[in-house]
């Protein structure tokens, strides 16, 4: 009796879990089908398989799209996302270490500021940031966008790194100090090598954040050949006719990068996300 009861509940739990997975995966499956099949086949639903002629035609069309070639956009996105990941990582590691190790009177206020910065919307900087970049001659220039992304990412990375640094044992650093090492030497030679797992989490999250960003690119980059990958998706939609085949293929190409990173570095991604929310 008991065994049967357990088996029944196990079956129900498994059924619920797997149907949830199915529901969540269905929209992605639809996009995949629209991408690999000619539009005529899916016009009455991508789930009908009366005809099935898969091809990579749509992917090639999206990559070399006449008005918004996605291939160029993906290259541009890498050009922005890589420096916009490395710069804040270095800058924030220094500051996060400072917060964790040194005490000074206004530290708690700065800390509160960091938390508040994490909450504000990008809309609150949009107009002035455009004017500042215009003043600096950095509108429609990747350097400007990289700087804004770096500054914007700093707050949560500092918080994350501070939390990480405060878990490291301080004894090793004190031993080095007794041996006469300077603050910077201690940081670079001893502390930084111990932080590699935390830096991996930061790199994964910040890269994905910049890669997926749309708003900052939208206000700062406008030359057709400079547009990032995310900016090209709405341009492919077309005014009167929505070509779902090409759009779906473009969507898959664009999301392939973050999905691959997530698949390979899932551990760091989840750890990073939980770190900046639960401990934050």
């Amino acid at each position, binding site marked *: 009796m008991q065994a049967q009861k357990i088996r029944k509940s196990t079956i129900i739990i498994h059924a619920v*879990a797997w149907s949830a997975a199915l529901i969540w995966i269905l929209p992605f499956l*639809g996009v995949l089908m629209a991408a690999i099949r000619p539009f005529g086949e899916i016009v009455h639903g991508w789930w009908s398989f009366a005809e099935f002629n898969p091809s990579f035609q749509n992917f090639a069309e999206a990559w070399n799209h006449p008005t918004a070639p996605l291939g160029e956009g993906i290259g541009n996105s890498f050009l922005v996302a890589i420096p916009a990941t490395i710069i804040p990582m270095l800058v924030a590691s220094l500051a996060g270490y400072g917060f964790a190790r040194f005490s000074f009177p206004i530290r708690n206020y700065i800390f509160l500021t960091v938390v508040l910065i994490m*909450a504000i919307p*990008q809309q609150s900087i*949009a107009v002035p940031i455009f004017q500042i970049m215009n003043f600096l001659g950095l509108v429609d220039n990747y350097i400007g966008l990289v700087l804004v992304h770096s500054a914007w990412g700093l707050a949560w990375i500092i918080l994350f790194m501070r939390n990480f640094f405060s878990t490291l044992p301080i004894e090793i650093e004190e031993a080095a100090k007794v041996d006469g090492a300077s603050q910077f030497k201690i940081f670079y030679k001893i502390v930084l090598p111990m932080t590699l797992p935390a830096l991996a989490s930061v790199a994964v999250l910040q890269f994905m954040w910049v890669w997926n960003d*749309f708003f900052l690119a939208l206000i700062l980059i406008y030359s057709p050949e400079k547009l990032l990958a995310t900016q090209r998706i709405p341009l492919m939609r077309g005014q009167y006719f929505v070509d*779902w085949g090409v759009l779906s293929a473009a969507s898959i190409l664009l999301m392939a990068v973050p999905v691959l990173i997530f698949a390979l570095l899932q551990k760091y991604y989840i750890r990073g996300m939980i770190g900046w929310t*639960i401990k934050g």
Partner: protein
Amino acid sequence: MTRGTEVPRRKISLSLFFIPALILIVLFVIFPVLNTVYISFFAPSGEFVGLNNYFDVLSRREVVNVERLSQGFPMGALVHNVIWILIHLPLSLFSGLVLAIFLGNVKGASIVKSAIFLGMVTPMIVGGLILRFTFERGVGVVNALFNLLGFEQLTRTWTAFPDTALFALIFGSVWLWTGFSMILYSAGLATIPKDYYEAAKIDGSTAFRTFYRITLPLLKPITLTVITMTILWELKIFDIVFVATLGGPGGASNVLALLMYNMAFRAFDFNSAAVVATFLTLLTLLVTVGMTRYMVRK
């Protein structure tokens, strides 16, 4: 080495740790935010009008459309954001919690979790496109489902009609965001010691009672975090709306973030845009400060 030379040198090297971060944040975050607040008090002519801008902009029909509140969309961007929170927050919170609990004892749970979490990894610009596709007539799976269940009147391109556009976006955003609360709850459940449940079982507690008396209270810090992060996300929602409906049709799915963008970069009315941006910022800060104080007090 005397103490006199040691202390200033240490202070200088100490401040060097902060200077690069400080420059970037002040120049590209703090100054622009304050500048936005500043220009929100001025008329386009350059005249100082103080809070009058706020009374003017926040009473516009694009923000709150009082006459249409009982008649249907568009009801104004602020109302749309509120509706978004009222539907999206409980749905994503609840489904994330249920999934996290169910997936605790399922074989292959990591595959299911990854499938659900895919929405969090996807660029929101793609997420918005996929949800529009999913709600499209003919090709979309939602309409096929309604057809199958006999709701023919709901079989249409949801994003093209004022009375369904916002709901399509909201339900689609639940689909995209549930992975967040699920992952956080999963992490939280893993920290609850197993003996709590064993003790409850020995005492003859029912599954529901155990959940209500043990699991839920212990998950409270996580619930608060998820609620805060989710409300912030809902207030800042932009990409999804931009790509799926552009706030349309006729403003029926417009939200504050998109309204601000249109005011600033379509109509070039920087002062009105600054009012909306400052108002949105105040809302996010209120949520954050409120939650932080609540958590600190606990």
